[in-house]
């Protein structure tokens, strides 16, 4: 906290009311001086209270060689204090008249990749410490790699202990060159570099006289001015429904935090997974109805139409649909001593959904020191790999690099209830088998492309419903086709067989009840699933019936 520039308390409060929030993470190897840097930021921005300072001043531990060991300000738990290293993620807070900052302080210790990933998951900027004497170490590369993997939009590299290399410009420049080249290779954002001495404060808060050759801002000036939200160019509506608010029969609101994009009354929205559309009636908050709401606001939305929406559903812009699929590929950071098991049923928590999911294949493991892609049959604690996953119900997702909210998920082991991994979904590519096959297409290859097996749905005398279902399934990414037989030509069974062999989900809708055709179709399409829907059992309203059929297809594991 720095002293208010404002003359009066009212001006001060007004200034405070406009402040923005920047979350950043810090990463460094043991002894890079990370705790000292954070202590320095807190101390120089007056984020430390006198009694806390007094408490560290009388501490028997002082590794700094200065009057007060600022690194002690951020050392949290007793065990860690005894070991002299931080071993978990700790959060720190400070503010300047321009911004409020949240620091996720994460350790650089080799075995703690998981902690760094945790801190990085919510950060908009990463400070990576490099010891000026040691240069770019394997750990520095690992920190940069994890920051880029977790999608942090801004990288700041603090080249620390410049006093120990006599503030030598060439040393600084060559570290910058090497680091910049590395980050470029892994597709990261252009890093910004700072020559600092955290112990004495050079270029941390104020620019140093000991680096006359350096013309850039101090680290804090950079933190105060770096654009917030600039990485978030993704503006297609994603509103995962968290909770349905229903205080009375005449109010039904969908509560949630907007994950991307904006909402206005009158906007057309589509609810997933049902695929039904409606318009936004109002955006309700305690502070009054809003004319506009945008990410990351927490709001409550009411719709013009009564459609069935519950927790785990998502409202989206129908012109810009997310991917809807039970199959996806993701980079995974494994976080538990029990290694990832293929084909084991984990719980995936993604936006507001929890679904069962299996890892079908590990495409490769990333060696975090060399960044080489290695074959692997499992992922151990702190290992990172690219895997393919199949879920019991479809997820509505975007690639993590496009949207961190709808592209992220965690793995929970249902036996021990612990969070065991973190996933970042990659953009699905047109599914092509690994090796280019030359023979005839197989059912497995069609499955790999379509994301579902063939199935036949028999639905007598509900043609409109059949076409509505076709639309819903198509929007889900399914290969689907309607066979309507008005003329009673009895061609349906044969056509159904052709479609089934081609891998499609086929909706047969004969005009009248024809048991012999039905039985023949069932026989010709076996062993693919055959779903006979009794029109008597389905709600008369096509929209409601379609939603019900989608549920049946989900229950049967067809979609």
């Amino acid at each position, binding site marked *: *906290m720095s*002293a208010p520039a404002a003359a009066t*308390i*009212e001006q*001060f409060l007004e200034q405070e*009311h406009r*402040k*923005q*929030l920047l979350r950043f993470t810090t990463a460094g190897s043991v002894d890079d001086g990370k705790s000292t840097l954070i202590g320095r930021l807190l101390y120089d921005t*007056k984020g430390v*209270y006198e*009694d806390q300072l007094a408490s560290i001043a009388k501490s028997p531990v002082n590794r700094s060689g200065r009057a007060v060991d600022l690194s002690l300000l951020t050392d949290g*738990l007793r*065990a860690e204090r005894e070991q002299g290293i931080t071993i978990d993620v*700790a*959060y*720190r*807070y400070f503010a300047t008249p*321009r911004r409020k900052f*949240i620091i996720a302080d994460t350790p650089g210790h080799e075995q703690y990749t*998981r*902690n760094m990933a*945790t801190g990085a*998951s*919510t950060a908009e900027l990463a400070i990576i410490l490099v010891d000026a004497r040691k240069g770019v170490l394997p750990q520095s590369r690992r920190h940069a*790699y994890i920051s*880029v*993997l977790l*999608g942090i*939009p801004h990288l700041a590299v603090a080249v620390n202990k410049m006093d120990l290399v006599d503030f030598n410009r060439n040393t600084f420049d060559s570290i910058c060159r090497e680091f910049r080249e590395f980050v470029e290779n892994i*597709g*990261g*954002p*252009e890093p*910004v570099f700072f020559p600092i001495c955290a112990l004495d404060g050079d270029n941390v808060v104020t620019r140093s006289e000991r680096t006359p050759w350096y013309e850039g*801002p101090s680290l804090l*000036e*950079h933190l*105060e*001015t*770096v*654009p*917030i*939200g*600039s*990485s978030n160019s993704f503006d297609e509506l994603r509103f995962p429904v968290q*909770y349905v608010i229903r205080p009375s029969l005449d*109010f039904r609101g969908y*509560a949630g*935090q907007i994950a991307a994009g904006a909402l206005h009354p009158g906007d057309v929205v589509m609810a997933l997974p049902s695929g039904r559309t409606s318009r936004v009636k109002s955006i309700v908050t305690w502070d009054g109805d809003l004319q506009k709401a*945008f990410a*990351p*606001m*927490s709001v409550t939305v009411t719709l013009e139409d009564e459609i069935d929406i519950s*927790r785990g559903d998502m409202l989206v812009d129908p012109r810009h649909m997310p991917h809807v699929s039970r199959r996806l590929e993701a980079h995974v950071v494994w976080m538990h001593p029990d290694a990832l098991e293929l084909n084991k049923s984990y719980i995936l928590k*993604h936006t507001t959904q929890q679904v069962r999911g299996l890892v079908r294949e590990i495409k490769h493991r990333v060696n975090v020191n060399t960044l080489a892609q290695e074959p692997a049959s499992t992922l151990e604690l702190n290992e990172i790999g690219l895997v393919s996953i199949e879920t019991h119900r479809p997820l509505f997702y975007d690639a993590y*690099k496009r949207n961190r909210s709808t592209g992220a998920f*965690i793995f929970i082991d249902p036996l021990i209830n612990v*969070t065991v991994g973190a996933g970042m979904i*990659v953009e699905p590519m047109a599914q092509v088998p690994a090796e280019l096959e030359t023979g005839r297409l197989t059912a497995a290859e069609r499955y790999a492309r379509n994301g579902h097996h063939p199935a036949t749905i028999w639905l007598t005398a509900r043609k409109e419903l059949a076409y509505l279902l076709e639309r819903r399934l198509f929007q889900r990414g399914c290969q689907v086709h309607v066979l309507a037989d008005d003329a009673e030509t009895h061609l349906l069974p044969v056509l159904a067989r052709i479609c089934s062999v081609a891998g499609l989900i086929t909706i047969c809708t004969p005009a009248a009840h024809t048991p012999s055709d039905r039985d023949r179709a069932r026989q010709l399409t076996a062993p693919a699933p055959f779903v006979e829907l009794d029109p008597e059992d389905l709600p008369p309203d096509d929209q409601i019936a379609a939603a019900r059929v989608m549920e049946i297809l989900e229950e049967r594991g067809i979609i």
Partner: protein
Amino acid sequence: MPEKQIVQTETTPKPDLDSPPPFSREALTHLRALEAESIHIIREVVAEFERPVMLYSIGKDSSVLVRLAQKAFYPGKIPFPLLHVDTTYKFGEMIEFRDRYTAEIGAKLVVYTNQKAIDEGASPFALGTQKCCGLLKTRALLDALASGPYDAAFGGARRDEEKSRAKERIYSFRDSYGQWDPKNQRPELWNLYNSRIDKGESIRVFPLSNWTELDVWQYIHFEKIPIVPLYFAKPRPVVVRGDHLIPVEHNPPLLPGEKPQMVMCRMRSLGCTYCTGAIRSEADTVPKIIHELFFMRRSERENRVIDHDQEGSMEIKKREGYF
């Protein structure tokens, strides 16, 4: 190795400290961003747990928490009870405020007291502050949670309060004895909170984790949230002991030569009368309190006698089940 993930590049910005920071798109102010995060957390708990409860300590953080809960479920009412663990050593003004305010907003209030310990004579004067706190707060809290049984309990703790809190998760897992294991916390990424527990286990949830004391006061100011008058300065009878001002409401034993005297003061945080030191202050409005805090260089819990019992005492209490 990820494919080229982020193509965006930023050159070193020329800092311009005289004009507002650049907005490339709409951004929330820091208080609105914190508010949105807290509301998300509160809704998530209500959606995923069977029997949530909100610990209501009557203090300023609780007041903010209650307001956030009101906002989270508006136009509905708060869908869980507020639980107050009453040690019977609270200030009379706190109890009066509690009963009036919860009735006013239509919240369900549950009050729990470790009556057995009180009947057996538990008091800070008889047992010392550590044992008293163990019986009347920690034990009572665990019993109260078991009586629900509540599977999730909101608390108003913030990470900036104390060093061991800085490492605690927003969803803090407690075993069936209510204990916290700092070495064995679940990883917590993005805003994806893991709500899975077995029978008897519970989660303490801290929606204000990322708020600072100043944020809380600013929010009270901007939102006009009612708080207990004890936070505002006025002349109060206290015993002056070294740097500490000890309120005399429950007749603390006096040292030789000590006498209650009227001192212009206020409470910076609220606990039991004996363990909550007052601070000398003239601040009788929220803006004045904010002004005072801004120039104050002492951390908030310093006036709580209990935290100073031994080095790292908060961490020890938390391991045992304290909030």
